[in-house]
């Protein structure tokens, strides 16, 4: 068992910066092989486009309000909301587009905010879970989630509510299959799905009754 040798490890030799540098060199070399004029033009264009890696000013429009931040360009919209401002209602469950807890509305489209860079989100209307209620008055989707107990630990709830809100805007009377499709990008580990389905129907104006029965033992 002692046949192993000591290894020096630095966990990833290629840093983001050296990688970017390498790319830049390749692009310029390729261009030189063509015409120098084109190379110069390309270089100029690239120079103008490059921002960062230091923090740059980013202006977001969140729930109708302007949010001015200084962010490294690699900061995602999710992080901008949770870590650089106080919109922590948007949750981080995986940070890789597979759980839906970070769902926000991008204009009217539900998106995973972990997959959108904050700088790319400029100029768009971002709606988070905090933007749905009117003061203390919950939106009808939020109200239905509370009444049907469509939440347990509640960590996935903001994401589901955003997906459902987007669905009902487009399709006010969805079928069960349409609801399931709209929520297929959201994961709930507590297993609240039957109540979520009931809540969506209630928000769409369709009443459903619980099938739970209580029977006396004796």
């Amino acid at each position, binding site marked *: 068992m002692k046949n192993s040798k000591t290894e020096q490890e630095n966990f990833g030799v290629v840093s983001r910066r050296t990688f970017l540098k390498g790319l830049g060199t390749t692009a310029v070399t390729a261009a030189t092989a063509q015409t120098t004029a084109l190379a110069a033009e390309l270089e100029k264009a690239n120079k103008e486009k490059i921002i960062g890696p230091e923090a740059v000013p980013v202006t977001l429009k969140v729930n109708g309000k302007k949010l001015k931040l200084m962010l490294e360009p690699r*900061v995602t919209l999710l992080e901008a909301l949770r870590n650089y401002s*106080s919109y922590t209602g948007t*949750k981080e469950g995986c940070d890789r587009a597979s759980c839906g807890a970070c769902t926000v509305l991008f204009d009217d489209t539900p998106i995973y905010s972990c997959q959108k860079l904050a700088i790319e989100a400029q100029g768009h209307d971002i709606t988070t879970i905090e933007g749905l209620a009117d003061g203390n008055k919950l939106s009808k989707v*939020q109200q239905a989630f509370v*009444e049907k*107990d469509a*939440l347990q630990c509640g960590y996935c709830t903001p994401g589901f509510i955003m997906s459902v809100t987007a669905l009902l805007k487009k399709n006010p009377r969805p079928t069960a299959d349409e609801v399931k499709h709209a929520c297929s990008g*959201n994961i709930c580990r507590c297993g609240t799905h039957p109540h979520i389905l009931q809540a969506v129907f209630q928000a769409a104006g369709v009443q459903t009754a619980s099938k739970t029965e209580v029977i006396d033992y004796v």
Partner: protein
Amino acid sequence: MSNWPSETKYISQSTTRLDGPAKATGRARYSSDIQAEGWLYGMILRSKWPAAKILSVNLDKALKVPGIKAAVVVKDGEFNVRFYGEEIAAVAGTSKQACLDALQAIEVQAEPRHEFVVSEDEARKDNSPQVWDGTPNAPAPRVRETGNVDGAFPECAAVIEGFYTTPVQIHNPMETHGNTVSWTDDGVTAWASTQGITSVRDGLAGALKLDHDHVRVITDFMGGGFGAKFGAGVEGVLAAKLSQQAKAPVRLMLTRFDQALAVGNRPSSFQKIKMGCLADGTLHAFEMDAYGTAGIGAGGDSGGGGGGANIPAPYLYKVPNSRVKQTSVAVNAGSSRAFRAPGNPPASFGMESAMDDLAVKLGMDPVEFRLKNDPSEIRQREYKVGAEKFGWKDKYQKPGSSPGVVKTGVGCAGAAWPAGGANKRTQGEAQINSDGTIEFRLGVQDIGTGTKTVIAVVAAEILGLTPDQITVHVGDTRYPPGPGSGGSTTCASISPTVYDICTKALEQLQTQSGIADARGKNWHAACKKLGVTPLTVHGQWQPGMSADHACGVQFAEVDVDTETGLVTVKKVVGVHDCGLIIDKLTLESQINGGIIMGMGYALYEERVMDDLSGVVLNPNFETYKMPGIADVPEIEVILINMPERGVIGIGEPATVPIAGAIANAIANAIGVRVASLPITPAKVLAALGKLPAPATT
């Protein structure tokens, strides 16, 4: 016998969750949402080797990364790591990006061990690499024997043998494990995503060598635990050390990958079962030889139940002659921890599969066979009620007789949760203010089960108020101590405690105010007489108002596509008892959740390890599949009301029987047994002889 009122306005009715609006608006601040002033981001460097000796860890370059304020190593000097993903060091900085850069700058000198083992079957071999040097991976099995097994088998009219296996299941709470920790001269405050504020406090105090009263743990909201979040965890201790060094609060939440590697799982099980019955269907002989893995060990944080791989056997049924041999096998993988009903879902799957196999061999209806052998009167009643509601008699056909390409089948299985009961040292207090407001303070935590709502429902009932008049504070170690949320004990612990607080509060309020009955409409008048000093009342758990041993049975109907192997669960009927129901609405949520989580165990979930690299191949939600809303069947819940037993928890029994019920339904549909969870399309097709059997993992 029980003091609970027989006529109720809120108890046993449906009350919406007290913190529902906070959760639905994003106002609820979870442990991962805490933004303490000047907080830093924390991240952990993990071992990329399944086994290695760490010779040195150099943090110098990491500390020079712009924005990095602290870096710590898990242990001083040389140390061993025994699984891929074990913690090595941690950094804290002003941004996640800075931390990512810093992790790459940490220099680790290591001596990797090229021999390691991640498969249970390899680890059991005599020449296997040892996870712990000098200790065999699989200790000699523990043997329990009753009756005369060898003499009993020849007396049986029917005997079956099977090898039933279950995978390692990962908890995957939506909020990963982690904390925000602030260490100042006054002590440590940790906002922890935990199921046990007290156990985290004591764990942190022990690891940091602080007095208990210098550590405060706060859990206002947390995003699920399922048994994996009782202890301070390595990540909690690292966050505290980073905070001390950086002189700033540190938020260290695990990544989704981290969560799959190092903070718990349900052990696997490999159950060789031989079982026989007499001609009238009475179980007569049982023999089991089983093993499973709990990773490198049994898990230091098993909290609500054993973290080892042993399972209860023979499960549920009384067999006069039985021999059970069990052992846990160590492998180079993260430790198991308690996972919703530890030991029971795998035990139920193995035993209930064997029960159906034996019923089929004997030619007896599976429900009749269970009624013949189940010693629980409650489950007997539940089988009868459930069979009726489910339409068992019409739906049950001979195995494999369903016509066509897509075959339908039905199955059932039973549950027990012999633990449960209450933490008898649970305490709490209430402060009644002169304006009629009342604030409860209990050192428990609401992990999504509705604990806060239970407190409000019980208080409203006893005080003659409405639940929304009750203010509830939980999740702070400065409140009177309560139980960790494990073992389905919380509801049975706090309900009698709140009852005690309320009855004492009424007595004192009535004495002080001179109003004979301070409840309901007299409440405000009585409170007004308190004047400037609020009334504070302390209470504790009382006997005779709670019980243990919940039962339950579940029925499942499935479609199996014999061309694709795909299983669709169409309908589940769950019949459950939990004594006196407190809140029907949140109870229904928990039963739905137990069934759905168990469905994942039956059909989709499995941690996959790579034998060659020792790496967990599916530490994320793309490759570790869990049930989504489109997979969820119609679920019908039937509650057997037994108020005379007092309060009993339900979280765990609800998830126990479904895997067995689904597996039996699949066997009933296709006429052959798939004895290995998860029942994937590939395994179904292999059972039908349409594909070679998949390699066992």
